[in-house]
C-alpha cells in the first residue's frame, strides 16, 4: 500500500523527496540525488486535516496532510508543492507549520502552455533547481540533469508502451495491476522502475500468449488523483476489465514527451511538462476534453468510469461540458465523486448497475 511504501523508503535509508502534482519535474529531484516519491495519503481520516483546513478541501490533499500530521512523512528530505490547484497551494502553506523539519518548495506552474508560459516556467524551474541544490547540499550539473531526463524519458516510454499493449490486448494485464505499476514507478528511482515495468510487461505478454485476454466489458478509467487500484479491482471483480486510463497518477504521468535534448535542459523540461496530457487546471481546458475523446475513439471502450475526488474545482467546474463531450462520443459513462476512501457498498451497487447497462 502507498503508505507502507513511504515507510519502506525511510527504512531503506534512501534519501527521498516528496512530490504531489503531475506538473512537478521530478527529473530535477532525481538529478539532485533524491528518489522522487509521489506521496499518497491516508485512506482513513482522524479528522486532523479537517481541523487544519476545512471539510470542503480536496480529500487527496487532506489524506496527505493526515500522513504528514501523523509524522509518516518525516523521512522525506524535502517536499515539492505546486500551484496545481487552490487546495495544493494551501497544502504548502499548512505543511510548513505541520512538518517544519521537512523543507518545502512551492513551484508556480503556469497555466498557459504557450512559448511565453514555457519561458516563465523555465525561470521558476531555475529557482526550484537552486532550492534543491541548497536543500540537498548538491550541485545539479547540466550533465546530471540530462541523464535524469533520459532516464525518465525511457521510463515514460516503457509505461506508455505498456498502456498501448493493454489497450490492444497484446498483453494480459488488468487495470488494477497497471495502476500499481504506475504508483510504484512514481515512488522508485527511474532505472529500478523501468526494470520493474519491463518485467511486468514481459510476464503479461507471456500470459497473453498463453491465452489470457481481457474479459467482459472493456472500461476506461478517467479522473483526477484517483490512485487506488482497489477501484479498478472492484470493477474487475464484477467481470469487467479496465483496459485504459486517463488519470493523473496513471497515463498522464507517461504522457510527458521526451524533453528536447537540443535546448537548455530546464527550458526543455518546462516545454515538455506544459505540453503533456493536461490537467483541466490549464487555460486550454478544452484540450483536456478533446484528448479524452480522442483516447476514447482510439481505445473504443464499452464504458467510461469517470472518478473525481470531491471538491476538485478544476474538474468539477468542467463536468457539465465533459459529460456532454462523453455523450457526444457515444460512450456510456458512470460519473463518481469519490472521497479518497477505498469504496463503499453504495459504490459497488452503482458499479454493478453500470456494468449491467453495457
Amino acid at each position, binding site marked *: 500500500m502507498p503508505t507502507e511504501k513511504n515507510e519502506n523508503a525511510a527504512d531503506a535509508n534512501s534519501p527521498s523527496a516528496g512530490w504531489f502534482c503531475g506538473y512537478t519535474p521530478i527529473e530535477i529531484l532525481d538529478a539532485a540525488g533524491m528518489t522522487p516519491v509521489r506521496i499518497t495519503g491516508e485512506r482513513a481520516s482522524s479528522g486532523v486535516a479537517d*481541523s*487544519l*483546513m*476545512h471539510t*470542503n*478541501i*480536496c480529500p487527496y490533499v487532506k489524506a496527505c496532510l493526515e500522513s504528514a500530521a501523523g509524522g509518516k512523512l518525516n523521512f522525506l528530505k524535502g517536499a515539492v508543492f505546486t*500551484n496545481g*490547484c*487552490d*487546495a495544493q*497551494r*494551501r*497544502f*504548502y*502553506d*499548512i505543511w510548513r*507549520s505541520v512538518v517544519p523539519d521537512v523543507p518545502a518548495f*512551492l513551484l*508556480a506552474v*503556469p*497555466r*498557459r502552455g504557450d512559448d*511565453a*508560459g514555457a*519561458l*516563465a516556467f523555465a*525561470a521558476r524551474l531555475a529557482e526550484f533547481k537552486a532550492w534543491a541544490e541548497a536543500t540537498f547540499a548538491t550541485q545539479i550539473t547540466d550533465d546530471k540533469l540530462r541523464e535524469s531526463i533520459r532516464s525518465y524519458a525511457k521510463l515514460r516510454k516503457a509505461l506508455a508502451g505498456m498502456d498501448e499493449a493493454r489497450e490492444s490486448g497484446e498483453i494480459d494485464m488488468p487495470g488494477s495491476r497497471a495502476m500499481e505499476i504506475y504508483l510504484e514507478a512514481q515512488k522508485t528511482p527511474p532505472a529500478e522502475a523501468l526494470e520493474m515495468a519491463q518485467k511486468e510487461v514481459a510476464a503479461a505478454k507471456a500470459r497473453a500468449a498463453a491465452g489470457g485476454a481481457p474479459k467482459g466489458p472493456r472500461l476506461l478509467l478517467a479522473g483526477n488523483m484517483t490512485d487506488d487500484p482497489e477501484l479498478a479491482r472492484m470493477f474487475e471483480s464484477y467481470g469487467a476489465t479496465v483496459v485504459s486510463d486517463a488519470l493523473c497518477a496513471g497515463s498522464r504521468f507517461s504522457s510527458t514527451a521526451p524533453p528536447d535534448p537540443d535546448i537548455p535542459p530546464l527550458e526543455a523540461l518546462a516545454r515538455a511538462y506544459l505540453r503533456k496530457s493536461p490537467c*483541466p*487546471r490549464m*487555460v486550454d*481546458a*478544452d484540450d483536456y476534453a478533446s484528448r479524452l475523446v480522442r483516447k476514447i475513439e482510439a481505445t473504443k471502450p464499452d464504458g467510461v468510469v469517470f472518478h473525481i475526488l*470531491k*471538491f476538485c*474545482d*478544476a474538474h*468539477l*467546474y*468542467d*463536468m*457539465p*461540458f465533459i*459529460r456532454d463531450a462523453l455523450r457526444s462520443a457515444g460512450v456510456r459513462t458512470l460519473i463518481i465523486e469519490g472521497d479518497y476512501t477505498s469504496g463503499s457498498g453504495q459504490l459497488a451497487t452503482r458499479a454493478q448497475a453500470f456494468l449491467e447497462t453495457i
Partner: protein
Amino acid sequence: MDTNLKAYFDGLVGSLGKKVAEQKTARRLLAYETGRIGQKLFDDNYAHAWTGVFVPFEIFRAMDVGAVFIEFVGAMLAGTGSSASFLADAEGFGYTGDGCAYHRAMIGAARKELLGKPQLLIGATTPCDGGMKTILNVARMTGVEPFTLDIPYPPVTKDKVDWLVGQYGEMTRYIERLTGKKYDPERMKESARLSNKASAIVKELYELCKLRPAPITSDTLRNFQIVFALLMGGEEGVDVAETFLSETRAILDSGAVPPEKHRLLWVQNRIQFKNNIVTWLEEKYGAKIVVDELNHIYWDDLDEDNPLEGLAIRQITHPLNGPLEHRLAILDKLAREYSVDGAINPSHWGCRQNCGARQAMKDSLRAEGVPMINLDVDCVDPRNYFEGQILTRLQGFMEML
C-alpha cells in the same frame, strides 16, 4: 429577476441619479456609479467584458471597455434576493453544489442571458481556480473567445513583471481585435493618473477609519474597494473617493461619530444576501467592523509613464495571490493598525483558497492577540442559511471578547 438586466440597471441609475442630484451621499453615489457600469454592458459605445475579480480595470477604462467581474454579478443577485433561482439553474445543468456560489450564480445568469452576451471574457489565474474556470465555461456557453491572464506569484522579479506586461500587451491586442477599440498610451497614462489620485484619497479615508472610535458604521465601507476597482482610472472613481472622504471628515467634525465598544476586522467578502448579523453586532454588542480585509491599498502609485509595469506589480503582490505568508502579514498589519479586538471570517463555502487558509489565518491573528471566528456561511446562497445558529456562535465569540 429573470429577464435582461438592462432594465434593472436603467431603473437603478434613473432613481439613484435623482437622489444623488438631491443629496449626494457616498453610498448612494457608489451605487449610482456602479449602476452606470452595469449600463455600459448594454451600451454600444462601449465594448462589453465580463472579467475576473482582480484584473486591471484601468486598462479597460482607457479602452472604453465596460467591464464587470463575475463575482459582482453573483453578489448583486444575492443582494437583490434573486440568487437562488440562478444557483438552482446552474446545479440543474450539472454544476456542483460544493463549488463557489458566486460562480454558480454567474453560470445560471449566463445561461439565462441575464446580462446579454459579452464581447470579451477576460479571466485571471488569481485569486482562485473557480474564477478562471467560470470565465472559460462562460466562453464555452456563449461562443465568445476568452483571454486569461496568468499571474505569477510573489516575490516580484523582473522576468515575472515582463511576462505579465507582455500578457497585458496581448490582452489589449485581443480587445482591439474583437471590438475595434484602440489602445492609446496617452489615455492609459491618464487612467493611471486618475487611479493614483483615487488611491491617495482612499488611503486618507482608511487612515480616518483607524481612529478610535472610527467615524463610520459597519456598513459604510461594505464591499467598498472590490466594487470601487470598477471605477479606477476614471473621474467617477475620484468623485466617489472624495465623497466618501468628505462625508467621513464631516462626521468627525460634527462629533457625531458612531459609538463602538468592540472593533472588528472582516475577512475577505461580506455576506451578500439580506441578513441581520451586522446590525445585531452593532446593537447588541456595540461592535463595529472598522476594516474589511479587502479594503486596503497595498500598492505604490503607478508610474504614469510606465503604468503597465505598476499594474503588473500590483497584480503579482495582491494579498490573495500565491502562498499565504503575504496575506497573513497584511491581515496582521490591518489588525494592528486598526486596533481590532476580533476578526470574523465568513469562510465562504466553496472558496478553497479561503477555507484552506482559515486555520492559518486564525493562528496568525491569535499570535497578534486577535481572536477570529469562522462562520461557515455561503455568502451568496441563502438556501442553507440559518441565522439563529450563526448568531448563537457569534454570541459566544462576542462574550469571549
